[in-house]
């Protein structure tokens, strides 16, 4: 007993104690739910069996049911579109802004800081604001588009199944720009000035400098930002809940929202956990890529 107290006071027991506090919590509330989720996805879980500890196992039936649902392929492609388009625009706009605010002018870093206002706001509130901006009849976006001659008629962003997904993507891009810009700014700031100066002396133009210095030196950073973008986009739930709730007719439904709908709106809980298992696996693979790319940057 004395030995234990001494090691906690003075030895590595202290480290182990502090570390295990957090790890036990995470195992209980993060790792265990994942395992439980896998078990549930192999059982029948609905309102009748939800409280029971002894549910019938059905093998891979839930996965089969999920994949054979007619909306499965629509949800899959919506998710792909949602992730790819969000990231392409977040990244290119964020990169452009990072390059712009990298230049030397008064107030540059202050203005850049203002962008983060978009990032700190609860996503549900951002969704509410965009729902009003994009409103069909009285939305200001439609007014701006029509008065500048981009479209002739009102676009019913949230109730037209052909555009609802894009409306959600627009709002998500707005939300993701600050974070992309911030992380890329950090990367840009770490590129030594004299590399550019040397290139300029050698007669390299601005575009040439960007292509042969900025892009290669930012490779690890871009990899990290893209994988973080995938992770954050797959976490996006609040925006969809505020804007379209997956509708109309599932036209803007994505996997993480569908999983929640199955569990909490139609109470097909085992189907919800089957979708959830598949998505969590995917997110973990992306996260492993992300961690590897930051490690890579470390050694270099």
């Amino acid at each position, binding site marked *: 007993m004395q030995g234990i107290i001494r090691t906690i006071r003075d030895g590595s027991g202290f480290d182990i104690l502090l570390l295990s506090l957090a790890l036990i919590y995470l195992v209980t509330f993060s790792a265990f739910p994942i395992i439980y989720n896998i078990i549930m996805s192999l059982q029948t879980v609905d309102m009748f069996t939800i409280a029971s500890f002894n549910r019938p196992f059905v093998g891979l039936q839930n996965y089969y049911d999920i994949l054979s649902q007619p909306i499965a392929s629509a949800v899959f492609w919506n998710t792909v579109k949602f992730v790819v388009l969000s990231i392409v625009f977040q990244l290119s706009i964020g990169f452009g802004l990072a390059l712009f605010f990298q230049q030397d002018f008064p107030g540059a870093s202050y203005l850049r800081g203002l962008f983060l206002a978009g990032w700190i706001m609860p996503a549900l509130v951002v969704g509410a604001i965009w729902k009003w901006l994009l409103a069909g009849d009285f939305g200001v976006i439609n007014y701006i588009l029509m008065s500048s001659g981009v479209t002739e008629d009102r676009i019913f962003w949230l109730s037209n199944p052909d555009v609802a997904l894009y409306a959600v993507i627009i709002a998500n891009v707005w939300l993701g720009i600050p974070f992309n810009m911030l992380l890329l700014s950090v990367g840009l700031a770490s590129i030594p000035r004299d590399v550019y100066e040397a290139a300029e002396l050698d007669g390299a133009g601005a575009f040439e400098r960007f292509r042969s210095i900025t892009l290669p030196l930012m490779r690890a950073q871009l990899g990290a930002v893209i994988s973080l973008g995938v992770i954050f986009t797959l976490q996006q739930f609040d925006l969809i809940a505020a804007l379209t709730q997956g509708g109309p007719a599932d036209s803007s439904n994505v996997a993480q929202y569908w999983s929640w709908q199955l*569990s909490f709106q139609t109470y097909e809980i085992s189907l919800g956990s089957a979708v959830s298992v598949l998505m969590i696996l995917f997110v973990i693979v992306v996260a492993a890529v992300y961690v590897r790319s930051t490690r890579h940057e470390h050694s270099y």
Partner: protein
Amino acid sequence: MKRYILLIIGLAITTVYLFPLYWMYLTAFKDGTEIFQYPPSFWPRNPQWNFLEVWKGRDMGRYIWNSLIIAIGVTFLVTILGTGCAYVLARVRNIWMDMALFAILMMQVLPSSLMVTPIFVAFNQLGLLASPRFAVILAQAAKMLPLYIVLCRATFVQVPRELEDAALVDGSSRIGAFFNIMLPLARNGILITSVLIFLQSFGEYVYARSLIAKNELQTATVGLQTFMGPNANDWNGIMTYAAIYVTPILVIFMLLQRRIVSGLTAGALK
């Protein structure tokens, strides 16, 4: 000269980006007919002050209070559990610590909307849903803890190791050195990271929506969602609600902006 042209372009870009925020405040100040007018006005013709009315009418005090309880609970729990862990991960370097850090990074990325299904079923079986706000605190703390550890670890890495070693040589115990030397030196980073965790939890939606059944225990996000209902047209009410809700968040953020930004970038990329 070129610098001022850049400044003007910079101001223009920022204005375009922040336009949605302006529109929220503007709509909150317009009256009920002006918001449906076409073409829309870009400055309130007849400014209204609906804030008290909406606060009372939508019972915002109760919603905000519930959000506060959850945010404070999460911040408290995460700080207690995570600070020591961040310190150890910064101090000790071996293969086990690398594996622990890797596991923590992996848990940081799990989407709430996917984790909520097993958490709901398990909490239901354990009877935790009888105290739903506590259940949300437990779930949200598990979501926030990895982020806190990663950001705090970056702070502890910056504290010179020699200071702690000196205290140990002088006969201080490990516990003493941790509380008297390391914690005070890392105080700023811990504080900023806690504020970040607080702000994130104050806007939590998925867990509150899914685990809390009673309306009087719901959070401000769910309150806003109910306000927006399927056929909502009280947009100046909704935008007033949103403005009341996010203004404190924006003010806190603007005050601490520089420190939050540097802490965040250090943690995300190192």
